[in-house]
């Protein structure tokens, strides 16, 4: 057998390049298409220009929740696990955060309390999966239902969300975090998403956590035989995802000025979509946090772009189709690898 590492053919090099950089090419392609399309008749884009400052800021600030989530979700999927409850965890966090604020709790304590709630929600998932040994899909499907159920219960009868009304008023600063531009025209939530992503990139490349996640997803037996506590690694990753879901919930709540128990609906699908689009293997072991981040930017650009091109009720179908394509290409790539 020859060493494949020594002499890659030019064909291999092209394949490698595509595998490593296709996500950036896709982002460029999407931006080019959206900015050259004639969008004059679509009022959402300022003067029909996708690349206008206002439009970019708009896309980035609605993207804050998914950008916050993508990194931790990638690490979890690299370890071979999945969390379907992120959307519900996000909704519950949004509701709890809004309730605290509307009842007079200042920003910082409300923020910290909601993040701690995220720790708890993630830990519950980890507990179900690792200690009770429930299959990850089933376990987090259960909590998807539970977390959403609690969020719905917290909202008063006959009211669709926690919002200003009656004696209670949202304070004026409520929008600052998720909506109003504070730094280069972008809200705190976006900058938090950037910080979280940088932290996750560091965790992936410079910390034991990232390496152990890859080992756990790549070959669990080998990981255990090497003395790695895979259970602790996975629980920690669930907690991280829980925290990021809480941050995403705060961002969404602040953006919409209310605590909507349905605000995270479908987030699990979007999260899986961006992570798969970023090239993370569904079977675990492989993936890059940064590529998922790019994947999230692509999906959000498309979503906003689509709003202007197709009716809103088409979007779920489009997301499903994109998911199918991402999963299929993922499968094809990994099959080709194993045939080599």
């Amino acid at each position, binding site marked *: *057998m020859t*060493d*494949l*590492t020594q002499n890659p053919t030019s064909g291999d090099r092209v394949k490698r390049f595509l595998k490593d950089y296709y996500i950036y090419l896709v982002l460029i392609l999407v931006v080019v298409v959206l900015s050259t399309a004639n969008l004059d008749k679509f009022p959402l884009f300022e003067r029909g220009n996708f690349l206008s400052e206002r439009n970019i800021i708009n896309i980035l600030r609605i993207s804050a929740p998914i950008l916050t989530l993508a990194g931790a979700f990638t690490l979890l999927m690299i370890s071979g696990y999945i969390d379907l409850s992120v959307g519900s965890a996000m909704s519950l966090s949004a509701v709890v955060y809004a309730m605290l604020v509307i009842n007079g709790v200042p920003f910082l304590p409300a923020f910290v309390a909601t993040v701690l709630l995220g720790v708890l929600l993630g830990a519950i998932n980890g507990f179900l999966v690792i200690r009770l040994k429930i299959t990850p899909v089933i376990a987090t499907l259960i909590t998807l239902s539970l977390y959403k159920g609690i969020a719905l219960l917290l909202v008063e009868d006959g009211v669709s969300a926690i919002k200003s009304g009656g004696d209670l008023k949202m304070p004026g600063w409520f929008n600052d975090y998720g909506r109003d531009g504070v730094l280069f025209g972008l809200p705190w939530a976006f900058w938090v998403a950037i910080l979280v992503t940088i932290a996750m990139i560091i965790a992936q490349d*410079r*910390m*034991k*956590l990232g*390496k152990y996640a*890859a*080992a756990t*997803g*790549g*070959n669990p*037996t*080998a*990981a255990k*035989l*090497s*003395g*790695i506590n895979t259970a602790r690694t996975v629980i920690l990753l669930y907690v991280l995802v829980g925290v990021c879901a809480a941050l995403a919930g705060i961002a969404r709540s602040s953006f919409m000025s209310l605590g909507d128990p349905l605000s995270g609906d479908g987030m699990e699908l979007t999260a899986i979509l961006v992570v798969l689009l970023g090239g993370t293997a569904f079977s675990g*072991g*492989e993936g890059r946090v940064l590529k998922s981040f790019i994947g999230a930017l692509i999906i959000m650009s498309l979503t906003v772009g689509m709003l202007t091109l197709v009716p809103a009720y088409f979007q779920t179908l489009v997301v499903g189709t994109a998911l199918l394509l991402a999963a299929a290409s993922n499968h094809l790539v990994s099959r080709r*690898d194993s045939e080599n």
Partner: protein
Amino acid sequence: MIVQTAFADNAQEKALSVRDLTKDYPGVRAVDTVSFDIDRNTVHCLVGENGAGKSTIVKMLTGALAPTSGSMAILGRDYAPSSTQDARESGIGTLFQELHVVDQLTVLENLTLGMEASRLGFLVKSDLEERVTKTLAAIEPTIDPSARVSSLSVAQKQIVEIARAASSGASIIIMDEPTAALSEREVERLFGVIRRLRDSDVTVIYISHKLDEIFELGDNVTVMRDGKHIATKPLADVNGRPELIEMMVGRAITHDYESRGEIADKPVLTVKGLSNYLLKDVSFHVNEGEIVGFYGLVGAGKTEVARAIYGADKADGQIDFLGRKRPSSPKEAIEAGIALVPEERRTQGLFTELTIRRNIPIMNIRKLASFGVFKDEREKEVAREYVGKLGIATNSIEKYAEKLSGGNQQKVVLSKCLFADADMLLLDEPTRGVDVGAKSEIYDLIRDLANNGRAICIFSSELEEVLGICDRVFLMYDGRVEAEIQNGAEVDIPQILNVVTGGGRENP
């Protein structure tokens, strides 16, 4: 730790000492008061037939099994591992047949996995990386530490795993059939690695069926037979293959083959030049009403022959079965009248969570249906019929297959094949895990089936089984059929063992 006085005075010179080691399973003594020593910095080979007790000893050494009685010592210190983790910490590394490397990480990341230096979870530079790189370079300089493991060959991955054991401080590395999946050149390279390991203060315990490898590589050899220790001596003092084989076989194997008379030359299955990733130019034929055996050691290619005929694996070459279409999938094989009884009965042959009555018709469920509607009553009738015919010991056809004994489970599997109207049965290790009484019942059943005109192929790693029931036997080694023997009173057992351990090449 307490230094045990029962061991010899020069105990520190012994990498490993085993005293009166015994392992009992219900009804079987797998390892029987075995004692031997392994000298430091040698390649120590462990040989014996299938079932001689080698792998049980390995499991006790690696902490996967606890001995029933007896003791072990490493460098004169008492050694009683409570787990595989414990064994590793005591300096015993194991190269499993299944590789335990993480494909998605680099070689260096694999070598340091679980041993990384870190502060608050952050990886920090340490001399560990330099050390493991040096270890790797010392045993195999051509592997690039920054390469992804997924880009390496199986042989290179194996070397990475050896390097990891060596750099995590293993003083003894156990290798169980490490050359099974390697090409000749890779075997040479592995031998180089093993020799360099030995020179750098590591003792290697080497298990292989390939006796040539043993003579080429080993310093000392321990021979096991029927769970007992036969001899431990320097290979230089062993008088070639014949002596080693004689020690492995010892007594004459008892086999009670009764000739079933002349079998007419009426081929139902003709295979020519079957080749795939493992098989090399396998040709043979099976006659109507004949029981043909394939005998060889682990990795010789028996199961692969069965899977190729059954359409479960791709293979080049010709397969002609009664002039019918060559099956390209198990479904087509069943339709052509071929049934396979797989080696792993519980996981591949049986639906353990279904009842006997649900299991029996499952390969040919259409036979129970009329106009697409499934008849429960017919199913019960069929189940009762087969339970009676094959003598399945159960009080009810509603019993779960899981609850049956090994022998009765195997009868259920056979019933499945018979109900599928198979003209030919491929039986892979048909009596593994079956007790003696049930064994002879299954043999009788197989003979009955053959007497009724069915062609039968048995793939077995038990010589007694093959010689006890088969009319003709093909001996396999390394993916080839090396010899064909007509069964009878005058079979030469040492010669058979010589062939299946790779000795057939020189004097066919």
